[in-house]
């Protein structure tokens, strides 16, 4: 069988990218596996059988799959890029009272930039990842990204920063499959990772939780400056104090440490005055938001009505978009709960990813 071309396959050691690698190989591609080492594993707590996507156990799993399906496999040292482009902005975002989305930065600066370069350097025609997403031709003829056929697993929300110019070189080998089909295939290929637990949460944070992670990264004197008051909206009365704004996220109601007669939610975090505003749930709803660093995979224009997701788990809501200089305004048909700065606002037309930006 003549080769369909040489592919650099990003392998995390999880079931999705492992199956993707085996699938590509069986389809006649010349596959080269690579794992990005992004983090010093020794700092992660590794629980046997519950590897996150950054543990050394996962690298060994990826290597075992590569050896089994007989493809070359390399570990790429990406620690410094990951530190600069993902970890540092992640920590800074929390210190500003935002809730960051590091997976998009990892995609933007590592998977679909650093790996694209590696693809070229290694004389590969394609780059493949185990994302649940599909590259499809759109009516205009240009390639676009469409949601995965598994609605629960769809990961297109994390892909809005992809440069459309690289789409002809991208392959998502499992985007047309359901998760259980992927696991079945993994079993058929005899992969040891077939029943490995899915990774959840942020890979480098581990079991300690993001709060402890941020606190370990930031000097105490700076952390102490992020302490402040908890105030009630709309009266402005002080209900208590807190140990740092990085401990809060929009919509949070548990762990506020308040003794109040009704259930309260974090409705705004003021990163400048370090005030955490709490209030009744109704104040969490807003009917519009502003987006910066707007990226378009396919052309969008002021006045378009699109389906909009404001967080990964969001089902999506109808909204009208309007350009206002550098930023874009998103006007929802129905008010949305807990619109959170630092998260992405991602636009779809039917099942096709149009683009996105960052919630201000």
């Amino acid at each position: 069988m003549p080769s369909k071309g040489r592919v650099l396959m990003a392998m995390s050691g999880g079931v999705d990218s492992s199956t993707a690698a085996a699938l590509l190989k069986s389809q006649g591609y010349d596959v080269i596996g690579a794992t990005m080492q992004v983090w010093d594993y020794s700092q992660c707590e590794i629980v046997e059988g519950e590897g996150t996507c950054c543990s050394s156990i996962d690298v060994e799993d990826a290597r075992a799959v590569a050896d089994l399906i007989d493809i070359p496999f390399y570990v790429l040292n990406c620690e410094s890029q990951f530190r600069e482009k993902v970890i540092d902005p992640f920590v800074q975002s929390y210190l500003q009272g935002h809730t960051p989305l590091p997976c998009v930065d990892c995609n933007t600066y590592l998977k679909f930039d650093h790996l694209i370069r590696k693809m070229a350097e290694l004389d590969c025609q394609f780059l493949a990842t185990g994302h649940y997403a599909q590259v499809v031709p759109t009516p205009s003829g240009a390639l676009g990204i469409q949601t995965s056929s598994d609605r629960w697993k769809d990961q297109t929300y994390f892909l809005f920063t992809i440069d459309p110019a690289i789409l002809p070189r991208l392959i998502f080998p499992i985007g047309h499959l359901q998760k259980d089909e992927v696991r079945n295939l993994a079993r058929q290929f005899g992969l040891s990772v077939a029943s490995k637990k899915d990774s959840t949460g942020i890979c480098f944070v581990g079991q300690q939780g993001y709060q402890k992670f941020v606190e370990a990264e930031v000097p105490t004197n700076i952390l102490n400056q992020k302490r402040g008051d908890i105030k009630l909206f709309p009266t402005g009365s002080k209900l208590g104090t807190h140990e740092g704004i990085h401990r809060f996220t929009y919509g949070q109601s548990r762990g506020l440490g308040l003794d109040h007669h009704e259930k309260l939610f974090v409705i705004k975090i003021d990163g400048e005055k370090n005030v955490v505003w709490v209030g009744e749930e109704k104040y969490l709803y807003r009917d519009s938001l502003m987006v910066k660093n707007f990226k378009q995979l396919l052309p969008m224009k002021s006045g378009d009505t699109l389906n909009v997701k404001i967080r990964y788990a969001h089902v999506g809501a109808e909204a009208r978009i309007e350009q206002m200089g550098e930023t874009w305004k998103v006007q929802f048909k129905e008010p949305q709960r807990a619109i959170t700065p630092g998260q992405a606002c991602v636009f779809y037309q039917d099942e096709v990813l149009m683009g996105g930006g960052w919630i201000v």
Partner: protein
Amino acid sequence: MIKKVYLDYNATTPLGQSIVQAWADGLNFWGNPSSIHWASRPVRTLLRQTRQDLADLFGASSTEFIFTGGATEANNTVFNSLNELKRKNHPYFKNRNQILVSNTEHPSVIQSASHLQAMGWKVDWIKINQDGSIDLAEVQEQLSEQTALVSLHIANNETGVVYPIAELSKMVKGVGALFHTDAVQALGKMDIHLPTWGVDLATFSAHKFYSLKGLGVLYVKKQTPFEPLMLGGSQERKRRGGTENTFAVWSFSLMLKKLLDDQQNSNSPRPPFEHLKNLRDLLEQQIEKRISGVRWTGTAMPRLPNTSHMMISGIDGESLLMSLDLEGFAVSTGAACSSGNPEPSPVLINMGFSKQQAQQSLRVSLGYPTTKSDIYSFVDSLEKIVERLRKYQLNTIEREVNAI
């Protein structure tokens, strides 16, 4: 299918042809050499003969060689012995608590020294300069009546630089310290004469010399105070517990025989060493002729005849190594790393090279089976890959400049 060319002989070597052809003979040596009955006799003869061959080759006595499970174990044994002797109040170490080790050693030496440091020993490091030289006057200042042991490898596995061990030995003996050399890289590449080197302890490895893995040799000169690492039976004159790896010894003995024949029947320089040097010179001439921006390491120093080390500007070493692998060429950018994760080589960093320089480094190490055609096809691929990588490096720089 691409042609596979192995050019990483300093990491390990394929088995010698004589071993591959006669391997079934080796299986006869299954008896336990420590037994009294008939099954032990041929095995004991094999061990005895191999030790004698080592002695003849290296100008030593057969009782001075201990078989170990590998060179790493042999190196560990040296440092452990020191600590045990001190612990047992051996008079030699009464006022000696300093260890002097070069900072480009194999990890089994560096880690052993650091381990002793944590246990209270004073460890000082011999600095290896960027050109591979050692400032002997500086070493002289580091030495004192408190020095217990000096450990310096005869040749570095990455740069191939051969160190002035005999000169250093005189200085070490001057303060009455023990002298150890990790000579793993020397066997089969240069003449070894232990009395000339003037060392008390030396480490060798079978698998770096076309023999099976799992066998090291530790030379311990007569009268050298010594304590074993592996406690157990009375093998190796009670200096290393554990049944010897007899099949590996058999394979090693075949290779040593050839070396010995050569040493007895040819003049210096020996033909196999000349073969390596001629190919290495060809490799360096070809690269120099066809690829610009190459900086050589250690070329002004005495070097192993088989090792070439260079830094290639404008490329990413990680991609270079992978691209060469994908074209069938096995080379290395530093010491073989068990994690497979390309961190910059500590040897180069300790020699004072920048992280970037270390990441642009390439080590090519040749072996007896290497041919001229291997060299030519390697340089063809290297030229092509370097050109490609430089193109992308340039693209990235342009993109970064444009983004400003």
